[in-house]
């Protein structure tokens, strides 16, 4: 377990209270899925708590070890109730780091989201290779205009349902840039479910060519790497918290459900499944703790390595939790199946484990 200091505990309790209060009802009534309005309301509540406020040390506004730890704990506290919302907040906070928006804090609609949206030439799972300085090269043909979705169906933006403005990394003739696109400016959008709960979607803009794009800032290699490192660290923390939650559910069930004359927790088969869960958690926790301490310049590759190693374990762990439940685990009632789905998404979003491993090796070879 990541040790929690007194101050951190205080903040985390506040977040926990919010998460339990605002998100808990979706746990109790699984037939209701949160919609865009609910998500907007949650974000408002987070704003009110100062979660995005740079002056109040909001999420990802600072990158010293203590702040990083605090960010991880905050994301985990929210993820225990809703990993999808934690991911929303995480990417929104990162966007605000690139594009500080003091004073806009009260207008949810004006807040940008970060999307590592990708166009032809860069399928999402190869995103990580788009490291300035990494071995990956961009086809100059894709730079003829904006390096942004140019072909119908080939582009993918992963974002919450209710996004209005997305901050997207783009490659231009002038080099890498952060640009802002507005939903209203995209003529047509095809929305796909990402199989993750709580209104996470993939968006395939049919035509983005005519959209106005606002240049926000040049994309510096170091800054981008650091941002990626934070994105991956947060993603791992969210996954860990969701698997911890799955473990709690599975252990409780194993202690109550009887089969063959005894509680199933006494069956060797179930103990092995619980061990799979425990292994995933046990290996991820210290790694996460370590990642909070590494220098900023090393975070991206250390986080890549950790994701490459640990996401598959976490997915296996949450799958094992579902198996403990048997048939009822497949139903929405227990809440485990949604954790299985979102862990699959967390595992392959912003670079798959395979890409993470390759990336780490590329860095080693380059060094």
């Amino acid at each position: 377990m990541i040790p929690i200091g007194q101050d951190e505990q205080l903040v985390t309790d506040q977040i926990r209270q919010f998460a339990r209060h605002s998100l808990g009802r979706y746990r109790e009534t699984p037939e209701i899925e949160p919609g865009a309005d609910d998500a907007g309301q949650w974000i408002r509540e987070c704003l009110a708590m100062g979660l995005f406020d740079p002056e109040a040390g909001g999420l990802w506004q600072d990158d010293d070890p203590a702040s990083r730890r605090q960010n991880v704990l905050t994301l985990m506290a929210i993820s225990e109730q809703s990993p999808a919302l934690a991911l929303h907040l995480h990417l929104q906070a990162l966007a605000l780091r690139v594009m500080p928006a003091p004073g806009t804090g009260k207008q949810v609609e004006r807040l940008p989201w970060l999307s590592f949206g990708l166009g032809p030439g860069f399928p999402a799972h190869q995103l990580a290779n788009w490291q300035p300085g990494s071995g990956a090269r961009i086809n100059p043909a894709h730079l003829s205009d904006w390096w942004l979705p140019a072909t119908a169906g080939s582009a993918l933006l992963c974002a919450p349902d209710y996004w209005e403005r997305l901050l997207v990394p783009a490659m231009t003739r002038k080099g890498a840039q952060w640009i802002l696109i507005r939903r209203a400016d995209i003529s047509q959008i095809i929305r796909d479910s990402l199989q993750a709960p709580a209104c996470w979607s993939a968006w395939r803009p049919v035509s983005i060519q005519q959209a106005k794009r606002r240049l926000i800032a040049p994309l510096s290699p170091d800054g981008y790497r650091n941002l990626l490192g934070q994105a991956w660290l947060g993603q791992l923390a969210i996954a860990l918290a969701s698997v911890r939650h799955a473990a709690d559910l599975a252990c409780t069930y194993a202690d109550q459900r009887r089969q063959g004359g005894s509680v199933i927790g006494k069956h060797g088969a179930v103990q092995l499944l619980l061990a799979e869960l425990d292994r995933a958690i046990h290996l991820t926790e210290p790694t996460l703790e370590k990642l909070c301490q590494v220098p900023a310049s090393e975070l991206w590759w250390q986080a890549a390595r950790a994701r490459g190693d640990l996401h598959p374990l976490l997915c296996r762990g949450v799958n094992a939790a579902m198996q403990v439940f048997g048939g009822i685990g497949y139903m929405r009632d227990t809440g485990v199946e949604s954790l299985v789905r979102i862990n699959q998404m967390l595992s392959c979003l912003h670079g798959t484990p395979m890409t993470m491993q390759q990336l780490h090796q590329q860095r080693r070879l380059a060094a």
Partner: protein
Amino acid sequence: MNMAQTQALRARTLTGLLPETDPLSIRQALANAHPGVSSLCRYDQESLWELDTRSLPKPLAQWRRQARDFAEERLRPLAREMDQARPAGTPMPAELRALLTDAGRAGWLTDLLPRPFGTLPLTSTPWPLTWMQCLKVEEFASACGGLMLLLCAHGLGMAPIVLSGDVNAIRRFVLPAYRQNRRGQPHLFAYAITEPGGGSDAEEGHGARQYRPGVVARKVAGGWRLNGRKCFISGGDIADTLSVFAALEGEGMESWTCFVVRSDMSGFSPVRNELKMGMKASSATELEFDDVFVPNHHVVGGLRRGWTLNRVTLNYSRLPVGAMGLGFARRALEETIRQSHELRTGNQRLLDQQPVQMGIARIMASLRSARGLVWQGAQRFAPRQSEAAMAKFHASDVAVSACEQAMELLGPHALSGEGVIGKCFRDARLTQIFEGTNQINQLGVVEDLQSILTDPGQSPLF
């Protein structure tokens, strides 16, 4: 070679491999070799599905092709639209009714018995029924897991009646339903064993020994009164006839008896449909039996014969569950190949990348090894529990693993778009759970081989 030919050749050549016109390419080398040498190995471009199909006996190969045609034509186009939960008590969507009507007319709802009673081709009778079912299920699953379950849960519901060998029951319940289905009036069956208090207990003897049955039959004049609840019954909300397993009042699981319950019997009601992760086109329904009167002649195979019938039915049904896994793994593989053609990294197709090529090869190998296991078990007229269980848990693990690998190769693209791989994963995940969890099936292997395992002096053992 002109420009167009050069481009075509380039499109057919993956990065890191030689074009087929290169003198060092094996195809080019064999083309120039002595026929005696070139006949020693095969490098033709026949699909592996075709190769497997041609290795089957002719009637089975034809059956497999027919199943594929039906799946492609009728199941696949509906797959995405029908992938949603349906509350109990709501009318069946017109598309599903039309599908069932077509499936009935085409003979896919009446294929447990050979002609003239059913629609199983007479030429196929020298081969086991389970093999035929496995071939069909794989094709249907590769098109849509939910619709496959909708069609195949019907066969499972009918199976205990057919397997009981009770001619009167077959004549009374199965044949009229067959006639209806053939006329295009769907009459579906469902198989009801799972109870809220015991899922795995209905699947293995040790658990059953300790289990207190939840659905109980009380003897009354002229028949039995059933009380209790069953849960997670596939197709339970739309079935016209159900094979319901219940214990006799005051007795344990050894008294389990199979009763045929009609959905219009007083006291019977589908209470709710579960919100499932996948296979949503087929509902998992909780059923209530509130003093349902079942006449004596609705008892199948005799009193206290239900446990045996259940276990025999599971032996027959676990192999098709393995075949479902094959279908999901295959679809995930096909989709990975299709998308890795379209998606590019830089100026390379994904398919040009070594890790992607290796990932595809790994999925292919595991799919084909699982298919070998399923077909091997299915080639026995009387399936062995250990073989059926091995095929089930191995093939379902392969299916889930194939979907996970596909997601790893394609990233979020695997989860979006048509959602094919995400859907395959959600559907495949159920195959690790139903028909006994994979853990129960692993123990089932040991149960079957108990006497061999406790007498390791026998040699060779396996």
